[in-house]
């Protein structure tokens, strides 16, 4: 592998690596705007200039692959500093400098570099170029455009050409008057449209749903996995004071590179919906608030008393929860358990190698359920399952299948007592005898197995709302109340360890190595790309 010296630090990187990435490894941050690790290299912005020993002219780091013995100067070169200074002055010549009212502030590459560079004057005294009519325009359902701020890096255009393959965005006109637009100004309805705002280094494209809801620097980010489908895109839950503000892509070359589809991304809001905050018990038709202790004591008796026990699990639950459910309800209590799955809208995602991954499965963990040997059923078989008689029905996730909210299902459930975990308002609440508040993905911890077979960890962003508990913990408490000490495992990590020793599908895996990284402030991982 070629060895390069960058600002005095020697690094060895694979052949073909460009100088920006090599420098990253050497701990030198070369600024860039148009470069993006998953898009083609165009060398347009010219900020990444570096000095290469022996070359008469400065070179752009993004388009320069390392060669063995190369000696590169970035921060240590006065020429580089001057050149970047000039490029910044050019870029800012027409940039509106409206940072105080720009929602990109705090996560703007231009602002960041301006700050690092520290120059606060310009020679520019002319009237700034503006794009009347394109200053606050809804480009599509999710994207707001302010063309005045555009620095012509073409990342958004390249995204639609190279990644989402709709080629829906283009430059129009040319030179300094070029601007970003769709065909004839039609709505930008690309299914990945919001990624263009991610790749936009400045505030020219921002996400309508997130704009002005929270300053970027207030956010903290927790690694998680998209609950939208079986592809399992890696994401950060960006949150502040126990509210989820958005999902942003978390880099994983094997799954979603640095992309999210609009459908998955905008599920973020749904994590804030928490209607069930306390355990509830139905007595004479009325739901009454009870404590967890009371609930667990009573449920332990009910569950052991049930001669026939049936459990509706869910492919939305983590491997750990499913494992505990299987061990407790099937192995231990000899109940019957099914995992309803229903085909979702077709979804797709492009991985870091440029291959499309497809899914027609609306659940993030069907593959996990399958690998745990659970029975996956469709709506029809779920109906038949509920049609049979049982002393107690346990519903681990009322949103597991749309069938559960049909009048027919409710009628079947009314026949015998039902225990349901619940987070949001759901028709099953009308018939359940017990309702236990469960945490959202943002407050849960565990792993999902993607359709591609990746076991991926998600972490809790904040503690659950009210008295809600994560599903795995509810099962653990129930196991404890019933005296099943083998399942009284006090963390998802412990459950995972148990699972890894028992289950083929998990053997050899280690919790700590399942990716995810550590929770961080948003700043630390921003602009992987």
């Amino acid at each position: 592998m070629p060895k390069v010296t960058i600002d005095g630090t020697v690094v060895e990187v694979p052949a073909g690596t460009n100088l920006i990435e090599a420098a990253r490894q050497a701990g030198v941050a070369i600024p860039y705007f148009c470069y993006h690790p998953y898009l083609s290299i165009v060398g347009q912005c010219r900020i990444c200039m570096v000095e290469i020993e022996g070359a008469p002219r400065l070179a752009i780091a993004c388009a320069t692959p390392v060669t063995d013995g190369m000696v590169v100067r970035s921060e240590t070169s006065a020429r580089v500093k001057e050149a970047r200074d000039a490029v910044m002055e050019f870029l800012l010549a027409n940039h509106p400098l409206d940072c105080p009212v720009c929602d990109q502030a705090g996560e703007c590459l231009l602002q960041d570099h301006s700050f690092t560079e520290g120059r606060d004057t310009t020679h520019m005294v002319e009237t700034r170029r503006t794009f009347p009519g394109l200053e606050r325009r809804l480009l599509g359902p999710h994207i707001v455009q302010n063309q005045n701020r555009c620095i012509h890096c073409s990342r958004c255009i390249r995204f639609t050409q190279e990644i989402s393959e709709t080629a829906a965005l283009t430059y129009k006109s040319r030179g300094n008057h070029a601007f970003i637009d769709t065909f004839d100004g039609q709505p930008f309805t690309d299914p990945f449209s919001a990624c263009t705002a991610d790749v936009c280094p400045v505030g020219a494209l921002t996400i309508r749903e997130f704009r002005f809801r929270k300053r970027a620097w207030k956010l903290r980010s927790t690694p998680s996995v998209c609950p939208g489908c079986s592809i399992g895109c890696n994401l950060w839950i960006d949150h502040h004071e126990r509210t989820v503000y958005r999902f942003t892509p978390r880099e994983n070359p094997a799954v979603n590179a640095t992309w999210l589809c609009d459908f998955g991304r905008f599920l973020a809001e749904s994590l804030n919906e928490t209607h069930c905050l306390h355990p509830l018990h139905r007595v004479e038709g009325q739901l009454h608030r009870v404590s967890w202790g009371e609930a667990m004591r009573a449920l332990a008796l009910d569950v052991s008393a049930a001669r026939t026990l049936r459990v509706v699990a869910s492919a939305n639950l983590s491997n750990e929860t499913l494992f505990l459910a299987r061990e407790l309800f099937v192995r231990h209590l000899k109940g019957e358990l099914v995992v309803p799955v229903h085909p979702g809208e077709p979804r797709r995602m492009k991985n870091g190698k440029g291959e499309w991954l497809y899914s027609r499965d609306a659940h993030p963990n069907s593959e996990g359920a399958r690998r745990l040997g659970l029975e996956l059923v469709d709506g029809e078989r779920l109906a038949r399952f509920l049609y049979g008689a049982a002393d107690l029905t346990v519903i681990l996730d009322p949103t597991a299948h749309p069938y559960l909210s049909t009048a027919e299902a409710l009628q079947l459930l009314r026949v015998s007592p039902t225990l349901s975990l619940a987070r949001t308002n759901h028709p099953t609440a009308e018939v359940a005898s017990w309702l236990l508040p469960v945490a959202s993905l943002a407050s849960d911890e565990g792993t999902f197995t993607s359709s591609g077979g990746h076991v991926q960890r998600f972490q809790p962003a904040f503690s659950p709302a009210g008295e809600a508990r994560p599903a795995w913990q509810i099962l653990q408490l129930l196991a404890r109340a019933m005296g099943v000490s083998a399942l009284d495992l006090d963390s998802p990590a412990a459950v995972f360890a148990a699972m890894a020793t028992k289950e083929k599908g998990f053997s050899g895996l280690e919790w700590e190595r399942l990716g995810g990284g550590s929770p961080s402030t948003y700043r630390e991982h921003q602009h992987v790309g």
Partner: protein
Amino acid sequence: MRTVAIHAVPEEQLTHVTFDATMEERISELLTHYPTRRAALLPVLWLCQERYGWIAPGVIEAVAARLGESPAFVQGVVTFYTMFYTSPPARYVLQVCKTLSCAVCGGRELLEHLKARLGIDLGERTQDGTFQLIGVQCLGACGSAPVIQINDDYYENLTIEQLDALVDELSQGKEA
């Protein structure tokens, strides 16, 4: 030389464009010149501009569909080049060279004269739709400055008198 007038098809008639047999034949022939379909984009756009007088959004969609490109891509290309009309042009488009050699050799005066005579500014068209005035960059004929291109034809070494005669002739042609 008799400059051929442009007949711009109104936009209403170009909302759903289907190429007729002649157009199809010429497009298919053009495609044999290149190893990719995309490469035929400029020639096909030229064909369309000859045929419809300008490149309406509906034409862009038809071209995009024919060549397997996104309409946005095609529109991006159309707007990069200055010679494709994105709105219906007048019958005669007077393209006055503004660049250095022409500017210092009478081009500026010609332009001022045309503006005054036609009562329009750069980028505008006369009310009857006969003339449209645009300033263009060097036409590659600087030795015979000042140079004006009218539709497809070059007029070189023009004096104000010659230009007036030409404009007269063309405006009469309109009646004929």
